[in-house]
């Protein structure tokens, strides 16, 4: 990292610290706290973006050295950071989001004036940004864990920000517990690594896996997969995610879904590709399988939601799955000795990481704007918002197209890269395992199509047709800062979609670091306008070209209109209601109705439960009131976690015997433990 | 005529027809109308006969012609006719709901196919004609068994048995160059033929006694 980047990085970190302190100092004056806290966060984000982007673009990231942030007084702990290519890439993601989210928060936080502590919100937000940036940059296992814990803690506080609701408190606790189970695994993993290398510095871990005995190495893999998997929200460790993300303030939800779960991806990439050396085949197979399952299950559960933010949260699980598919394929290619393909799959996964960060944050911001305007997350009470919040609607629509992996936006580009790597993967081995690639590809296709269905529902039910409630009818457009925040992310979606080749250059130092390959030249042809698969003639795509061609073809219908429809007029009339006395919002299709076919087709998974009660005077066909209730079973809660919880509680009840309540008893425990340890040491 | 090319064509045709046999098997699994199932079985047997003819032609193995003709007469014409008559006599045209629904059974059969291919993989180099015929033969066997388990009507179970036998015959024909003796093939053939006729009578009797073909009702026989 050169002087310029390093200075800016220091500025960025400083801005976060200042924002945190400033917001706390001025918490009595909430307007000031808001401006100072989120203003400084914006400034920090801008510095971060420039710093990380320039480090990646100039290749400075490849030659960066580790330096100590501040001296440590504790033995074994060094507060050193190292902005290498991988760290810079993830730093870029969080900085980019920091800019958009902080600007958005300036407007969003106004909704809390008078009844919540905005200063605390801003301070925690800055703390979260700071801690997460440090997680990406930490160069020392213990420092990493400290940053990781600060991140988890500030995220917990932010999730519980609206703690007056019971749902929020429960979600916060669930998040906290799951997060710590994960951290415990990480600690064990790092201890194993320490055992092998004798140091906690990340530089000593590099390619360490090659020198470790197989059993230990596999244990490290599993521990980190589990530990980071909890954070990333991969199935079946995801249950905290759809609980915690929706209840947080929307700017925080965006940050959590956009970046926080990506710390898990960062950790896996760091450990699997940087530390572990040449992987055995089953690692890749495991990651690919988990990715595929997460993707499909995530989107299926998302379809069943009619809480807009929960729906988005389940989509995070889906997208983590897609990212893991890229990483898993990359591991398999590394095993079979195809570094170029491994780089392609890795790029596909990481490109999807930044894409998901951008469009998911955008969608959460849109959901926040809607929540701000209608005071509900329930889609069944929305509708017709496109006329009341037109600009938010455009941003949300672009986000929806992007997340559904439709051309020409960014989601399509990264999924295209994933498909390409899966397709090329078939030829890398002759064993049966190669069937994994096309089958995962088919599941990816299923995921994409279901995601499109889900976002037709999300956008259609929320924004289109008639308002379904008074709140929705009274909705108003979001303030300028909130729109600006969404606008920045919308622009990022379009940019990442239309100009992938420009962005792919930033991956060169990264793949150079992790797989020793630079692919951006091979990946783009025709002056960077066309993206091509790595293999010769493997296939090309140009989102920009397609967009331009769409514009070129636009004259066709326009000329037809001119030729034929010159004199035709347009009249606005009521929707066709079959000659009845007009349509009411009650007659519109609901979110629950929209996903019913999917619920029926996958009923083995969802186990839908339906209850209909009618009250009628003389015949059930002329009901006066109908009460309809429909649930799907949360399979993971009921089948895995509930029995687990039951077991733990039962075990705890047994252990309660130990808790005698007398001081002597506790002293004996400590004494006995000490004796045992001493004996063990002998 | 260029001999190597024509052998290649022969292999291609055999593989294709074997694959089609598999497709017919899948259709059988999804099919609930009895008469249609019988016709599907006839088509499958026709494909088998055609494969036998092609094999006989390319290997100048005259005894395989015998197999082809017997298959044609017995399994394309006689047995379907017999079963058809039976369906008309017992007046039941539709299978009741199988144990597993169609998509699930389909996916299971996909899995069984995979298994078949896996098991046959070590032998593929042995074959000269039809690369994966043996794999398909095995798959027919496995899916035939699955079909027997999955269905409740005695008649479909008979059909399933017949498809298993088709699988065995396909394997025999495919490995014909390694000298599966004609006697064995004929033995299997007549064995099954007699078995089916006995079963046919049995089906009729079950229907008479229980007013149903549901074999799960046979447990009422025990005292």
């Amino acid at each position, binding site marked *: 990292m050169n002087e310029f980047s390093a200075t800016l990085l220091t500025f960025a970190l400083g801005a976060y610290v200042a924002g945190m302190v400033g917001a706390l100092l001025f918490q009595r004056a909430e307007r000031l706290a808001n401006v100072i806290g989120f203003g400084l966060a914006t400034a920090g984000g801008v510095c971060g973006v420039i710093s990380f982007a320039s480090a990646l673009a100039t290749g400075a990231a490849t030659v960066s050295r580790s330096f100590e942030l501040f001296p440590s007084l504790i033995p074994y702990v060094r507060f050193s950071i190292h902005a290498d290519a991988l760290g810079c890439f993830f730093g870029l993601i969080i900085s980019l989001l920091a800019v958009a989210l902080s600007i958005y928060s300036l407007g969003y936080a106004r909704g809390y004036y008078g009844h919540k502590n905005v200063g605390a919100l801003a301070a925690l937000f800055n703390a979260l940004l700071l801690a997460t940036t440090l997680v990406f940059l930490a160069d020392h296992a213990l420092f990493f864990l400290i940053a990781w814990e600060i991140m988890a803690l500030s995220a917990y506080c932010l999730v519980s920000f609206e703690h007056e609701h019971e749902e929020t408190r429960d979600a916060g606790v669930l998040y906290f517990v799951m997060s710590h189970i994960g951290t415990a695994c990480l600690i064990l993993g790092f201890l194993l690594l320490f055992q092998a290398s004798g140091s906690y510095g990340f530089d000593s871990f590099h390619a360490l896996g090659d020198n470790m005995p197989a059993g230990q190495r596999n244990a490290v893999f599993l521990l980190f997969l589990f530990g980071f998997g909890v954070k990333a929200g991969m199935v079946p460790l995801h249950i905290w995610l759809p609980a915690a993300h929706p209840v947080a303030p929307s700017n925080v939800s965006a940050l959590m879904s956009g970046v926080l779960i990506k710390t898990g991806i960062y950790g896996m990439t760091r450990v699997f590709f940087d530390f572990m050396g040449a992987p055995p085949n089953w690692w890749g197979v495991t990651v690919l399988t988990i990715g595929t399952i997460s993707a499909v299950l995530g989107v299926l559960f998302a379809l069943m939601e009619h809480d807009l933010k929960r729906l988005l949260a389940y989509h995070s699980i889906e997208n983590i799955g897609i990212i893991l598919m890229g990483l898993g394929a990359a591991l398999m290619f590394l095993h079979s000795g195809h570094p170029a393909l491994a780089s392609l799959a890795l790029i596909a996964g990481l490109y999807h990481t930044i894409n998901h960060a951008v469009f998911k944050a955008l969608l959460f911001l849109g959901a926040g704007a809607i929540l701000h305007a209608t005071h509900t997350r329930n889609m069944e009470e929305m509708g017709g918002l*496109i006329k009341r919040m037109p600009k938010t609607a455009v941003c949300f*629509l672009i986000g929806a197209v992007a997340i*559904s992996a*439709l*051309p020409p936006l960014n989601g399509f580009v990264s999924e295209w890269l994933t*498909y390409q790597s899966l*397709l090329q993967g*078939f*030829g890398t081995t002759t064993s049966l395992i190669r*069937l994994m690639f*096309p*089958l995962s*590809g*088919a599941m990816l*296709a*299923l995921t*994409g*199509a279901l995601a*499109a269905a889900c976002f*037709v529902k999300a956008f*259609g039910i929320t924004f*289109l047709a008639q308002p379904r409630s008074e709140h929705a009818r009274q909705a108003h457009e979001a303030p300028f800062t909130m729109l600006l925040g969404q606008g920045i992310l919308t622009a990022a979606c379009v940019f990442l979609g239309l100009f992938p080749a420009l962005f792919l250059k930033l991956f060169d130092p990264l793949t150079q670091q992790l797989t020793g390959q630079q692919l951006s030249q091979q990946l783009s042809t025709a002056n960077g306008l*066309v993206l091509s698969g790595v293999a010769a003639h493997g*296939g090309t795509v*140009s989102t920009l*070209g*397609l967009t331009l*061609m769409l514009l070129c*073809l636009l004259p*066709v219908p326009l000329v*037809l*209109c001119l030729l*034929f429809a010159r*004199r*035709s007029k*347009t*009249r606005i*009339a009521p*929707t*066709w*209601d079959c000659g009845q006395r007009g349509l009411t919002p009650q007659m519109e*299709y609901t979110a629950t*109705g*929209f996903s019913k*076919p999917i619920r029926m087709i996958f009923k083995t998974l969802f186990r839908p439960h339906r209850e209909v009660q009618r009250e009628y005077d003389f015949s059930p066909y002329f009901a006066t009131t109908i009460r309809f209730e429909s649930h799907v079973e949360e399979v993971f809660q009921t089948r895995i976690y509930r029995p687990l919880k039951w077991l733990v509680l039962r075990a705890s009840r047994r252990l309660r015997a130990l808790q005698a309540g007398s001081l002597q008893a506790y002293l004996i425990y400590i004494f006995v433990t000490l004796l045992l340890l001493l004996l063990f040491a002998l | 005529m260029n001999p190597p090319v024509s052998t290649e*064509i022969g292999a*291609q045709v055999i593989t*294709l027809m074997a*694959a*089609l046999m598999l*497709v017919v098997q*899948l259709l059988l699994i*999804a099919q609930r109308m009895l008469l249609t199932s019988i016709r599907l079985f006839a088509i499958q047997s026709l494909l088998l006969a055609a494969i036998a003819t092609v094999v006989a032609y390319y290997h100048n193995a005259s005894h395989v012609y015998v197999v082809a003709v017997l298959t044609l007469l017995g399994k394309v014409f006689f047995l379907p006719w017999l079963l058809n008559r039976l369906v008309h006599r017992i007046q039941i045209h539709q299978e009741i709901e199988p144990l597993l629904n*169609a998509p699930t059974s*389909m*996916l299971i*059969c996909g899995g069984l196919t*995979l298994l078949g291919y896996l098991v046959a993989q070590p032998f593929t180099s042995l074959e000269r004609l039809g*690369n*994966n015929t043996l794999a398909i033969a095995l798959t027919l066997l496995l899916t035939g068994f699955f079909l027997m388990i999955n269905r409740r009507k005695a008649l479909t179970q008979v059909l399933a048995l017949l498809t298993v036998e088709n699988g065995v015959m396909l394997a025999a024909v495919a490995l014909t160059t390694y000298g599966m003796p004609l006697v064995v093939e004929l033995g299997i053939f007549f064995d099954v033929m007699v078995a089916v006729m006995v079963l046919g009578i049995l089906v009729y009797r079950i229907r008479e006694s229980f007013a149903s073909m549901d074999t799960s009702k046979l447990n009422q026989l025990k005292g």
Partner: protein
Amino acid sequence: MNLSPLALLLQTLLLLLLAPLLSGVIKNWKAKLQNRRGPPPWQVYFDIAKFLRKDMVISEHASWVFSFAPYVVFLTALLTGLMVPMINTPAPLSLFGGVLAVVGLLALGRFFLALGGLDPASAFGGMGSSREMTIAAIAEPALMLAIFTVAITAGSTDLSRIAESTQGATWKLLNPAHVLAFAALFIVLLAETGRIPVDNPATHLELTMIHEAMLLEYSGRYLAFMEWGASIKQLVLMTLLINVFFPIGLAGPGASAAAFGISLLAYLAKLLALSAAVVVVETTNAKMRLFRAPDLLSAAFVLATLALLSTFLFH
């Protein structure tokens, strides 16, 4: 960059003009198989021309999305057509995207079509959108797996290259992988183009509709673009099927005029043959209940898996 404006223009024209004719031919043949005389094959042109000239009535609840959707549907269908080789390889826009882009663009069109169905606040439209997205979603894995099978064989996702790689001796086209993948894609074709047994294009009963239900609110030129777009999509999918699996007679780069002529004739003949198959299926089957459609599509998925297994053994 080898974009030939002439080829682009010609293929655009061919797509625009041939698509309604193909729909008309299918309707005519269907009528013939029902022992009717049937509308003339060029009836669809008359319909489209009339819709273009008529006034429009637009729902008061609809937003700009409703007006935007017909253009998206029409243009994406047209654009995908330019990436599929029709009478010569490479297709004019081969460079801009292969089969993945084709699937993606069609999905984009469907996305807006479904939004257009939801926009006017009519229950029928919502129902149509819901069903369309469901059917598309369960057809997608079979589609992608079948495409993967051919793409793996060809080592490319570029449709022109796939077509070129399957060119060769005719009997080679009879390999099981090919035939099974074709069967899988044929089923997907029926689902994607809204044909019996998945959807009934001629139904009048709103509750049985899928595709039509989304169009109930459209009128005038928007309806014309929707119908035309749907017919272009049908032509594109059928072209994809015949030229990927039976690229017989397809002219290569730099072919002579005579080769182009033969290619055009062969193309039309294959198109008619495939249409005949569609007509036979539509005439001899009843529409399935909505919840039976997954059975059919899971059969397509299994067929595609078998196709993949066959390639697995061959190479």
